[in-house]
């Protein structure tokens, strides 16, 4: 896996969400991702970044364009130093929320992207990595 472009964004306020989404869109456009795939990736990114703001008071996101055996894609890494997720399996379930929302953020984001990885240590923080390939496969 080769990283072709890398960028980091700090997310600390709700106002950072829109510029961040636009940056993700820019990355998607740069590798020629179709509109549907762009929208999927942006929506997943939006869910994860909102979680980060809501539960961990923000964090940072690493945006990368990666290449792997003639496949190109966008990788987003969301890192926060929040309270962490106590029960990851539960958090990945549809309709489960500790914050009175729809409870679709994490499981929905997982369905929207090609690869999804969540690591969380209670008390230390959460890291979510998602990859979406150019053709969505």
């Amino acid at each position: 896996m080769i990283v072709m472009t890398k960028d980091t964004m700090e997310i600390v306020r709700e106002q950072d969400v829109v510029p961040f989404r636009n940056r993700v869109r820019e990355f998607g456009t740069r590798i020629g991702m179709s509109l549907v795939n762009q929208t999927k990736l942006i929506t997943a990114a939006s869910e994860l970044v909102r979680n980060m703001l809501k539960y961990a008071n923000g964090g940072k996101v690493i945006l990368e364009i990666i290449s792997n055996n003639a496949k190109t894609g966008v990788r987003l890494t969301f890192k926060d130093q929040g309270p962490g997720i106590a029960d990851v399996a539960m958090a990945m379930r549809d309709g489960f929320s500790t914050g009175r929302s729809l409870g679709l953020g994490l499981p929905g984001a997982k369905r929207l992207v090609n690869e999804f990885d969540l690591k969380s240590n209670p008390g230390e923080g959460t890291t979510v990595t998602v990859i979406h390939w150019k053709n969505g496969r």
Partner: protein
Amino acid sequence: MNTTAQVLEKNKERILEKWMQNQLSDASLRDDLMTTDELQRQSREMLDGLLRAVAKGNYDNIYDTEFEQVTDTLRDISITRARQGFSPRETGAYVLSLKQSVIEVLVEQRKDDTSMLYQEIMQLNNLLDNLSILTFETFIKGREEVILRQTDEISEISTPVIRVWDGILALPIIGTLDSARTQVVMENLLQEIVNTGSNIAILDISGVPAVDSLVAQHLIKTVSATRLMGAECIISGIRAEIAQTIVHLGIDLSNIKTKASLASALHLAFSMTNLEVRRTERSKAPKLTR
């Protein structure tokens, strides 16, 4: 031997003249934004203040009272220039060209005493550098004010509720639907339902760039509230990519009436209120008589 202040005071007119020359010879000077007379008046005021402060022997602290007039003038100039659309370079050049003029005059006057000249230049350098930092600080503050005003203006663009037909309201939502915005949208909509006695509301989300679960939750809440008021809600403007995303996210909008375009939503609204739009035949249309 004269003190620095005396030398400068004696040569005030020369400094001003040189300073004006420096400013006017600068190719970037925007004579479209300020007349030469005004510039001259402003520069004289500034120089007077500066010389008065230097006469008191203060070269270090520009926040002292004797500098009040200078810093006030300078702040005033920077803020005005920031608002008028001067560039930072133009604004900064104002003070920096004064430094150049003052030093040129001092060099002329102190040809025979270089150690004195050196000391004076160092002091004035320090002083004018501080003043130029102040200029930049104020300039940026002026620009920030502009940005803040624009932010306020943007947030004031509230979502209008449009009465498209008797009993049918349309609400085009443009931009991101966050919690604060939803509150405004919902209040406007519910109030307008009461005011007009409408029973159908069309929420058009064509202008919402991304629909994530938070936006969806806000939409569902708005629809529920509308229903509690006895009106029916149709969501229109669901683009193809948004539809696919909503399905993958797992958001259930199945008990909400949705349409791809505002036109088809209006069509549905007409049929719900038993209205029909028909093309009239030309020949049957009543002739207009004068």
